[in-house]
């Protein structure tokens, strides 16, 4: 079953998604960079990032978003987020003797006034966002396999049937 304009939804949805995704990523960046001054922080920023990619997935289809951000890159970014947090913890252990200590706190550096909180926000946002995006991608990939694999005979469907 081939649609007129490739995979995904209609062109109206595609145009609106193309406009909205930039604003969603901007909002995620606002949550990260001002996470210590205004309500927000790493977790909503990560979920917002994941929602931006999920919007692209819903509007353009799975094949398009796998070219933009492959699952391998997303899983590596998840590891990078955890490693940044661990690295900042070990730096705190090195500089002030306590694991995860905030060794840069209360400086007068522009928006870095709260030390490692912003860096940890970036780590949290990367891990949360990429994990949720990968969960959605896993549901999109593996949910299809159940219908098309050996189980399709039990479900009474033809192999390769779009469902």
């Amino acid at each position, binding site marked *: 079953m081939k649609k007129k304009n490739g995979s995904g939804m209609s062109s109206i949805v595609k145009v609106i998604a193309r406009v909205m995704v930039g604003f969603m990523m901007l909002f995620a960046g606002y949550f990260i960079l001002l996470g210590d001054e205004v*309500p*927000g922080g790493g977790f909503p920023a990560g979920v*917002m990032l994941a929602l931006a990619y999920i919007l692209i997935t819903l509007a353009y289809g799975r094949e398009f978003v796998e070219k933009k951000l492959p699952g391998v890159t997303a*899983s590596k970014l998840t590891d990078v987020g955890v490693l940044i947090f661990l690295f900042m913890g070990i730096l705190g252990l090195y500089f002030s003797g306590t694991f995860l200590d905030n060794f840069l706190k209360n*400086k007068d550096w522009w928006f870095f006034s709260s030390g490692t909180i912003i860096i940890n926000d970036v780590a949290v946002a990367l891990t949360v966002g990429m994990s949720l995006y990968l969960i959605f991608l896993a549901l999109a*990939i593996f949910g299809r396999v159940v219908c098309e694999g050996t189980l399709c005979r039990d479900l009474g469907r033809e192999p390769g049937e779009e469902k």
Partner: protein
Amino acid sequence: MVYRGINDNYVCFNDEQVGYDMNIMLLLHLLIGFMIVGAIVTVEIKNMLSAVISVGAVGFILSMTFLFLGAPDIAITQVIVEVLSLILLIRATINVDNVAIEEKGESIFSNRTTLIFVGIILVFAWIAFQSLPIFGEPSMRVSRYYLLNAYGKVGASNIVASIILDFRAYDTFGELLVLFTSISGAFAILRRGKVDKHKDHLRIDLER
């Protein structure tokens, strides 16, 4: 008593005990009533898509409740996570048969057992709730230190950020490890079929 008022934008550090405004309490009771009605509708309705929409309504009312209680961080997180879970639930239920399976004949034994266990739980909950502080008057032992030192010692004007990423950074680190482990486990369990190692380990061979 440290108290953060609903209509006040500041935290006052005096010993004066201030209760919640009666109008706000009425609003909170209304919102909690709506949430209970939405939960009952979710359980009892036959159409699964309507149940999912009702779950979404409950989540948004919960975020409004957080906003009225003076916790905008949690309200933002609640709204965004609610949108994500609504997308996942609608994707999961929009293609399957929309009517829930109806059971034929009621098992009286299970109903009686459920009632007895709910009664026992209510009795013990009544005993346990006696020792909790009154709503709106929390006992400020540890959090008083956080509120007093969040700006001066950390330098973050958002107290929530300074708590979750400075005073209690272990919790956040554990949360990250939980997410990391869960996504690893999801991929290990959900993987099925032959893996094409040359291109992409997520792309799997569908014809085997």
